[in-house]
């Protein structure tokens, strides 16, 4: 592969891409917005691979609604999501998250599919999609089409069930226009910060009772996670100060954060309760 160890190919259709990826196997590395891949190359985290450039594939772009389902093409950029009236209305939690995703320049390049594929526990695009109970649609020559619940997609930091040869084509979820949403990111700066902790919440009310709630947490476990116990606790309850106080204690038992350069495990655990309280208050407001 030459001195650099890298090769490049730019397939012109999705079908061609699947063929290339199938032949490249473990050596294939999909490049779209390249906001993760280029820094990883420079940091020598990636070497000796075939860069499969899909950035120009129109088939993988755009936002569609069919009945109750919203489908986002994997090459849709974060800026395009922010400019979409559909996302603002039908997926408020995702729209709010896009506002604090990286910075405006990176948002012009970074794609939602790339954010999923990168499998960061802190991914600001993934946490809201998890709260939306999204499904990742992937395709390959070997296995055809697979629809993978996002909840089952990640296996660890930087790791997922995506196999060599598989391409994320889109992500889909049900509309949430009738629900309340909140996304809160806690980072050390407002822009270009990796989340210390983040929360995405989608709540449906029946009068003043919680009919259903989904809560997703970022950077608080080896993968983005749902707070299932807290969700169960809240379902069917009327929201008052005591319920919020109890839930904000319970949710701290559902996380398993690390200590790193940005914050300690204890601090992140404490933050979990604080973010929960802020998120539910924002959703109620």
């Amino acid at each position, binding site marked *: 592969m030459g001195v650099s160890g890298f090769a*490049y190919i730019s397939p012109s259709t999705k079908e061609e891409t699947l063929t290339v990826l199938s032949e490249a196997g473990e050596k294939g590395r999909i490049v779209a917005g390249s906001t993760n891949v280029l820094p990883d190359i420079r940091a020598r985290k990636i070497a000796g691979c075939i*860069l499969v450039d899909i950035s120009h594939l129109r088939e993988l772009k755009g936002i569609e609604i069919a009945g109750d389902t919203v489908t986002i093409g994997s090459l849709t950029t974060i800026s395009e999501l922010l400019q979409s009236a559909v996302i603002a209305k039908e997926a408020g939690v995702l729209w709010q998250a896009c506002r604090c995703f990286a910075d405006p320049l990176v948002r*012009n390049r970074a794609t939602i599919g790339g954010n999923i594929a990168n499998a960061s526990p802190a991914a600001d695009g993934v946490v809201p999609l998890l709260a939306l109970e999204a499904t990742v649609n992937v395709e390959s020559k070997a296995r055809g089409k697979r629809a993978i619940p996002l909840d089952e997609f990640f296996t660890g930091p930087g790791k997922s069930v995506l196999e060599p040869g598989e391409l994320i084509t889109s992500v889909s979820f049900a509309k949430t226009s009738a629900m309340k949403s909140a996304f809160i990111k806690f980072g050390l700066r407002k*822009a270009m910060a990796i989340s210390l902790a983040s929360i995405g919440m989608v709540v449906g009310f029946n009068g003043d009772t919680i009919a259903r709630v989904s809560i997703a947490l970022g950077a608080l476990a080896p993968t983005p996670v749902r707070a299932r116990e807290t969700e169960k606790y809240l379902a069917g309850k009327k929201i008052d100060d005591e319920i919020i106080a109890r839930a904000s204690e319970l949710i701290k038992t559902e996380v398993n954060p690390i200590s790193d350069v940005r914050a300690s495990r204890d601090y992140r655990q404490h933050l979990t309760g604080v973010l929960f309280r802020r998120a539910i208050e924002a959703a109620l407001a």
Partner: protein
Amino acid sequence: MEIMREITVTVNVNGIPVRAAVSPQESLLDFLRYRAGATDVKCGCNKGDCGTCTVILEDRAVKSCLVLAAQADNRRVWTVRGLEKDPLMQALQESFATHGAVQCGFCTPGMLLTAKNFLEHNPKPDRAEIKEAIAGNLCRCTGYKKIVDAIAAVAASRTGDRA
């Protein structure tokens, strides 16, 4: 379609096609500085944090260190030197000078390009929107206030309003 160790690309830089053979992992930033001679595009962190390498790719401000040179094939790139006759860029440059928004000047080309691209999409921003728009461009000298003032003044003069 073939797997390539070297890719021949033609990038339209400030209206002039620049043709070169690039390596797969070469960034648009390196292409612009070392192949197109566009040294007005600055290299700061080279990992997507600082925004000094901002250029306008087609219609969008992007960090050129985060774009593969190969991905800019057959596309148009504008850097600050290519916009010297652009009325909005001229207005921004004058406003930066009169407001003292330039100190060491290293962030200035990127800051100007981000500001121009932003004002084209949002002609009547408020201060909060301006601050958000330049969130990807770091300045270690000015404390940002003068930069925000400079951009706000241009927005106000173009719309007749005060930002």
